[in-house]
């Protein structure tokens, strides 16, 4: 199976065989992180970055009263702390929500890429720009969408991101997130998460059984969530 980061980048631009080789050889090892364990801790100064190969991870901050806000959900192909290469100290943690397989890329290897491969460097830059675009979109959704619209928006986004890395099965995605995790992601109580999911089910927009989430009516789900995928920058262009 191709490296999901390669799939993610190839959706947006052409990668040469040499560039794919360089990305592959930048990986020093693969580690497995169990569910509910940190991939990277807040306050840590990593000397390597983590590329998610399998599983779901979350960026998060915890407040003194124990409340948690998840600021990003990461899927296969996401370079969860690429920014630690330049920002050095982590100002938040990254948590495995499910068992995760993580490719470890030493910062020294990233430095070599930036020295020798300008196009690949731009694509890694693009990767962090897309992370930034997603953060902007989430901030807007959090501040201005109703709970139901926000959930619909989240589902649309996640579906497209998983589709890019070949992790969809028809209209179905495997989404093993708990109500509490969804609540921490969307800034909702568990009760509201259940209510909005019930609403989306009742309207015939989704079906969610176990871990399998099926989108039954993409057009209406997009409309309810006021979802426009421009910010995901999915088009293939020279960059």
């Amino acid at each position: 199976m191709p490296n999901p980061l390669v799939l993610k980048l190839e959706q947006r631009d052409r990668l040469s065989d040499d560039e794919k080789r360089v990305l592959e050889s930048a990986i020093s090892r693969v580690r497995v992180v169990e569910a509910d364990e940190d991939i990277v801790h807040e306050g840590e100064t990593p000397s390597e970055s983590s590329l998610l190969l399998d599983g779901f991870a979350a960026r998060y901050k915890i407040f003194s009263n124990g409340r948690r806000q998840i600021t990003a959900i990461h899927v296969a192909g996401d370079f969860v702390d690429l920014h630690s290469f330049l920002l050095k100290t982590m100002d938040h943690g990254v948590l495995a929500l499910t068992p995760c397989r993580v490719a470890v890329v030493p910062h020294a290897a990233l430095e070599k890429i930036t020295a020798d491969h300008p196009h690949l460097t731009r694509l890694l830059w693009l990767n962090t720009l897309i992370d930034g675009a997603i953060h902007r979109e989430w901030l807007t959704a959090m501040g201005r969408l109703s709970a139901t619209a926000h959930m619909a928006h989240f589902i649309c986004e996640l579906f497209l991101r998983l589709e890019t890395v070949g992790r969809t099965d028809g209209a179905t995605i495997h989404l093993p997130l708990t109500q509490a995790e969804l609540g921490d992601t969307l800034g909702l109580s568990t009760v509201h998460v259940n209510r909005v999911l019930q609403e989306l089910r009742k309207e015939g927009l989704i079906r969610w059984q176990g871990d399998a989430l099926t989108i039954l009516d993409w057009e209406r789900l997009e409309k309810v969530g006021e979802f426009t995928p421009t910010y995901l920058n999915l088009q293939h262009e020279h960059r």
Partner: protein
Amino acid sequence: MPGQSTPNISLQPVSVMSDGGSHEGRLVFSGSDLVAVFAKISAEENAGGRSGRGGWFLEAGFGPCGILMTHQPSVFPTLEEAIAWVRERLKSGLASS
């Protein structure tokens, strides 16, 4: 003023319209001030919550009972526990959450 005396709490039955329809609820007053609105929710609405059982959900809270001031979860097994929480919040005011 919070923290000066035990607040005089009174309850008023209401029906609360939320996503999913009409719910049995209570307005909670401290003296003449509305401080919280609780709705009785089903186990289904609390699925994935800490208890996973039905109970009284803090639909809206004001001042020290504000939603952002609460610990998770904001579902209490009984109305008595919900009111005990309101009293505690009013006593501690904004100092701690």
